[in-house]
Each structure stands twice: as C-alpha cells, then as structure tokens.
C-alpha cells in the first residue's frame, strides 16, 4: 500500500506527462469500449449485410481482430513508456537502493505506476468510446455497463502485465551505476 501511495504521489507531481502516458492506453480502451458497446448493433447490421454475400462471422471476426490489435499496440506502448520512465528515474532508483529500500518495494512502485496508467487510460478511453458510440445507434444501458467493466479490467490488467519487464529492470539495475549516472 505504501508503494502504491508513493506511485500516486510521483504521478501526481508530474500530472502532465502522466496524462500523456495514459493517452496511449486510452486509444485502445476507447476502441474496445466502442466495439463491445455496439456489438449487438454490429451483429444486426452484419446480418443485413450478410444478405449481400458477406458473412456475419467475417465481420465479427474483423471487429474482434481490430480490437485485439488495438490492445496489443496499447500494451506495447505501455511497455515502451514504462521502460523510458524507469530509465529517466534511474537516479531515484539508485537513491532508494542505497537507502536500503527493498527490491520488492521498488518493483511495486513501478508496477503500480503501469497499473495506474492502465486504470486512468481505461477511464478516459471509456468516456471517448461512449462519445463515439453515441454518434451511432443508441447502445442499451446494459451494454454500456458491460463495455465499461470489460474495458476497465482489460486495460488495467494488460497495462500491469506490460509494466512487469520495466519494473524488473528497475530492480536489476546497479545502485552505484544508477547514482553515478550523469544527468
């Protein structure tokens, strides 16, 4: 919990760049939200199109593929961004290590940060996704709730997984190298 509080404090102190990092997640989350919220509409429209020779199955699979691609790209972006965050904060990691802060806590600080980007990005994405969804046929309330829960869980979990490698990198770095690094 203390590592989570520290992550939140550091994110809060650099809100601007944190918001930009969340945006990477938000794009994927918005698409996910939109697809799920509109899934029944997509299905009925696909059924209409099916008359014209295109199968329902194909259209559903194409939408799903798009969403998966968006999620993978979002996850990769979180991984890249967190690696950069870890490199930027090498000095801080060195100080924490020199002060004898446990590797577990240092790991958690950076893992929680990825988790928070996923969570905030998910929220932003849901709002954007809802905005786009409202442009088309009105989705049902139940579908919106389902899309919201699914998107939030997915973006948070995927971001956290994407942050594992950078967080491990933070722990593995040598304290002396981290501190004597000229900035």
């Amino acid at each position, binding site marked *: 919990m*203390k*590592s989570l509080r*520290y992550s939140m*404090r*550091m994110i809060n*102190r*650099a809100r601007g760049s944190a918001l930009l990092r969340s945006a990477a997640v938000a794009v994927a989350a918005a698409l996910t939200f939109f697809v799920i919220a509109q899934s029944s509409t997509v299905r009925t429209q696909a059924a209409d199109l099916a008359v014209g020779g295109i199968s329902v199955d194909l259209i559903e699979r194409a939408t799903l593929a798009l969403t998966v691609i968006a999620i993978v790209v979002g996850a990769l972006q979180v991984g890249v961004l967190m690696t950069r965050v870890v490199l930027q904060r090498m*000095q*801080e990691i*060195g*100080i*924490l*290590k*020199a*002060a*004898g*802060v*446990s*590797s577990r*806590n240092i790991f958690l600080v950076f893992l929680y940060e990825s988790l928070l980007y996923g969570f905030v990005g998910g929220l932003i994405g849901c709002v954007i996704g809802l905005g786009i969804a409202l442009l088309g046929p009105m989705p049902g309330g139940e579908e919106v709730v389902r899309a919201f829960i699914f998107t939030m869980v997915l973006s948070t979990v995927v971001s956290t997984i994407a942050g594992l490698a950078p967080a491990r990198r933070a722990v593995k770095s*040598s*304290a*002396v190298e981290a*501190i004597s690094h000229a900035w």
Partner: protein
Amino acid sequence: MNQEAAGQSEGDAPIVQTDDLWKLFTLGDEVVKALKGVSVAVHPGELVCIMGPSGSGKSTMLHLMGGLERPTKGEIYLEGQPLSGLTESQLSVMRHQAVGFIFQSYNLIPLLTAVENVELPLIFDDVDSNEVKEKCVALLERVGLGHRLDHTPARMSGGEQQRVAIARSLIGSPKVLLADEPTANLDHANGEAIVELLTTLNSEMGMTTVISTHDRSVAEHASRVIEMADGKVIADSGASGNPLTSSNASA
C-alpha cells in the same frame, strides 16, 4: 595493511572493517584495478577522511564499506558482520539500518520537497508517518533548513541541497555516515560549511563519519586521515585516541 591487528587489539570493535579488499572493473577489454588489497578499520566516533586524487579508489572504497557494491576479493565487516555471506536483500536491510550515504551530486528527487526527500528512506517502512515527519522537520532544523521545509531542490542552492541530503542520510539513525566527495560541487565557503556541519554531527552526536575528498582543507577537520593512491592506502594517521594504531602511521 596491519590495520586489522590494531582493530583486534582495541576494546571497542570497529564499525566498519575491510580486510584485503580488491575491486576490479572491466572496461571493454581492459581490466581496471580500483582497489588493490585495502585493509582499514573505522572505529565508533571517528571522523575519517579518505584523501586521494580521482581514480585513487576512494569512491569505490566508500561504496564497498556501505555494502553498495561487492568486492572482487576480500571481506567487509559492518558492525562485525561479514557482508560476503549476505544475500542482496539482507545487504539491503543492512544498508537500511546501519549506513547513511551522502553523494557529491546531492541526489535529491526533484519532484519532492525537502521534507519528502528526507523521509524517503523510511517511506516504505511500517512506521508512524507523523513521527517520521516530525523527525524530518527536526533534522532539517538541525542542519539549518527550518525555513526550507516545503522547497523543492530546484529552489535551493547547492549547499542547501547537500544539507537536505545530510538530513536524509540521518533519518534512519545510521551507525556510520559515508560521504563521497560531499563538497566537490560546492564553492569553498559552502563546502566549508558542509564539512563543519559533518564535524559538528560527529562531535555532538558521536556520528561515525567517513568522508572522501581530494581537498586538503577538508582533511584538516578530520580526526584521522587515510591517504590513497592507485588503489592502495599509502598513509594512515591512525585512529584518534587510539595510540595502538600509530604503528600504521607511515606519513
């Protein structure tokens, strides 16, 4: 070299002791010998100054003494405990409880205020945060920064930043302070003030302190001067109030 004999013959055990320390670094194809068999013992209450030009191995020496790095060969005893047998996490706990580090470039976190920087070493511990905060304020007042509690490093001078770093090194009530070139980034007056602060902490709190420097005026404040060159100890003025170590005073 014969410092270990002095350590044994004395009543109060050394806080930090090194035994035939070697440290080799590999830079590309080249092997750099930073330390070539250094044996030193630092006793409680001493203010030791390690003098030497850059590249003499004094920074490496401090890193090894504080368990920040592992030696290639040799042993380090921190409060009598050999460090070679410790796992990384045990070594980390050891640093946390026994060592305070001060660095040449202050190493404060730019996003945090003076108080937050000072409490950093304890921020993940299971301690009463109000108590820690009070201790931070008290330490900052102690180093003369009672009026800068909520300032970030960018709004402080180099001397002030180094004072914050000193307060941070003291927050965990360490047994030994290791200051690596603490005045090298400061002008003479500010550097002098930092050394005076360390000297006062040593005399008033009995804080065992090891300072590395290439500045001879810093050494004037020390109770003992160890001179290093080319990875070896070339002179040691001996532990203060401990005539037994004079056998090592080759200067």
